């Protein structure tokens, strides 16, 4: 039997589609649970949130919108032991890698930033690199639009186009499967009894229709919020850099809780701290927030960003100037989590609109 090739590898589209039934996904995840910590999105009062897959009874939903918890929290833990005593060992190195199910396009874009930061030969973050290397990503199209979604404004589609192993496009009775990596291809080959080749033009049409409808709805919301055009985002942050009033106005309601940093799929800043227990000591890496006053303060007392508006400006500068300059990517994925999380109701879409004068 011939298997359809990964688009990225063959550069051409194929005629057959791969189809996975709902029940077969359960069976796949059951089997994958042996080698991976499998996480699935479960609907809660706060929206979709990741939870450990606990067998066929787990009530999860692959489509919908992105989870409220950012994908980074499974690759770069909020608080993680990174070294113990003076041992060169990497803590948790024998843990099972994550298998994330139902990952959305915005979170996958976050990997472009996090990979740039954490993967390198000399000083790469070992736990991040291991989770990325050994982990499995089963992504999915969005089938709904959240009130804060604006991915199309940052040049993303509400369906994944890269960074996944396999992608699931929900259709009646199951999913149309797309391969995104060699690892994904191998997985489909290994579980060939679950992944079936079908020749069904209607399925293809259903996938396209959903994608088109969801994208349209995001675009309508983006238009309502007057978000500047993608190609202008970098320029307007530079242009308004010295405009203190606009940053002061935008940061007025900030209470420095750091929620925007915590939920952001691209925020990567952390702090190292030491902890002692009896005769052992350990070094921990914890998420940090650039909105907090002491973030850049040095021991001597000098603080390059002593004022709140400077810190908000720095956050935008980092996302819309720094990362495009060093990594060629805007570090905003349009997931809208920071909008949902902010107790001061600071809306990144409104700040961007305010910068465009």
């Amino acid at each position: 039997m011939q298997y359809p090739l990964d688009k990225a590898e063959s550069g051409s589209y194929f005629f057959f589609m791969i189809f996975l039934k709902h029940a077969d996904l359960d069976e796949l995840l059951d089997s994958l649970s042996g080698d991976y910590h499998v996480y699935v999105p479960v609907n809660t009062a706060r929206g979709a949130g990741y939870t450990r897959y606990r067998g066929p009874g787990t009530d999860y939903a692959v489509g919908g919108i992105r989870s409220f918890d950012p994908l980074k929290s499974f690759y770069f833990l909020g608080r993680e032991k990174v070294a113990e005593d003076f041992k060169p060992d990497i803590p948790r190195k024998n843990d099972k890698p994550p298998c994330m199910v139902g990952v959305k396009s915005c979170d996958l874009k976050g990997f472009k930033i996090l990979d740039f930061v954490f993967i390198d030969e000399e000083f790469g973050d070992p736990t991040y690199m291991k989770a990325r290397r050994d982990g499995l990503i089963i992504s999915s199209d969005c089938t709904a639009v959240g009130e804060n979604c604006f991915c199309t404004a940052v040049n993303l589609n509400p369906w994944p186009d890269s960074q996944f192993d396999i992608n699931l496009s929900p259709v009646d009775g199951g999913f149309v499967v797309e391969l995104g990596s060699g690892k994904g291809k191998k997985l489909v080959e290994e579980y060939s009894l679950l992944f079936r080749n079908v020749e069904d033009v209607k399925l293809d049409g259903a996938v396209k229709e959903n994608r088109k409808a969801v994208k349209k709805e995001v675009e309508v919301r983006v238009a309502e919020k007057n978000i500047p055009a993608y190609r202008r985002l970098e320029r307007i942050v530079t242009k308004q850099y010295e405009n203190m009033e606009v940053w002061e106005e935008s940061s007025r309601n900030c209470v420095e809780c750091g929620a925007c940093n915590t939920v952001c799929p691209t925020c990567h800043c952390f702090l190292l701290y030491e902890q002692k227990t009896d005769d052992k000591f350990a070094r921990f890496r914890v998420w940090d927030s650039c909105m907090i006053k002491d973030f850049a303060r040095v021991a001597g007392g000098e603080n390059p960003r002593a004022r709140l508006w400077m810190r908000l400006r720095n956050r935008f500068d980092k996302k819309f100037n720094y990362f495009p300059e060093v990594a060629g990517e805007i570090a905003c994925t349009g997931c809208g989590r920071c909008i949902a999380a902010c107790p001061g109701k600071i809306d990144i879409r409104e700040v961007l609109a305010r910068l465009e004068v």
Partner: protein
Amino acid sequence: MKNPYRSIKTEVLKVTTETPTIKTFLLKPGEKLTFRPGQFMEMSVPGVGEAPFTPSSDSEIKETMEITIVKVGKVTEAIHDLKPGDTVGLRGPLGKGYPMTKFIGQDVIVVGGGVGLAPIRTLMYGLFHMRDQIDKLVYRAGCRNPGELLYRSELEDWMKRSDLDMKLTVDQADEAWNGPVGVVTTIMDDIDVNFSRARAVVCGPPIMMKFATFKLQELGVKDRNIYLSMEKNMSCGFGKCGHCRIGPYYCCKDGPVFTYDMIRDYPGIWE
């Protein structure tokens, strides 16, 4: 995979009190650990915390290193309590350090202030090792008062060197001080080098670095030839934790030594 967060177990061999708030620690790392002038180390007191410091000893000495530390916060307070025989952690070397090859064939002006004399000590040793490859060598250093002058007897020896044009100043003199009085920029007017080609190195407190840089510009040193040792909040030391960003750079990974033209346009560089 290497673990970049892990420190090397290191023994404190000797503690020298330089001033009431400054001590120099002679350290012996348990594993091979070498550095180049201007590179820094993350030094930790197990279970207490970690902070970045630039060694102050000759980088050609491979078995041990000295680090001079001012008591200013939680970690440095714990460091100041250390005694010979105690154990600390060292992580590094980190950063790029001084571009020593850029000094070959040029006049070099070194300007130091306060505890900035510590990293400069390593640099001066480095420059002495390659003294025959550089043209004129000028050292100007200052501190608040004679009691805060680091490595005083060593500096007095250096004063006698015929291959070094050196001057020291203090902001406030005491009875025993017979040298110049005033900030370091007041002893820079008699520097006699080819300014349009000279390389200058500045290390000291932010305010001193700022005015020394302006003075060097005034003398005719090009922005691209002024090397500044920047101090920023650095946690990881290798460009991941995000604290020490200056425009497109991280102070730790891309510095901590920057030419002035690299960073002059970014806000808050002197803070």
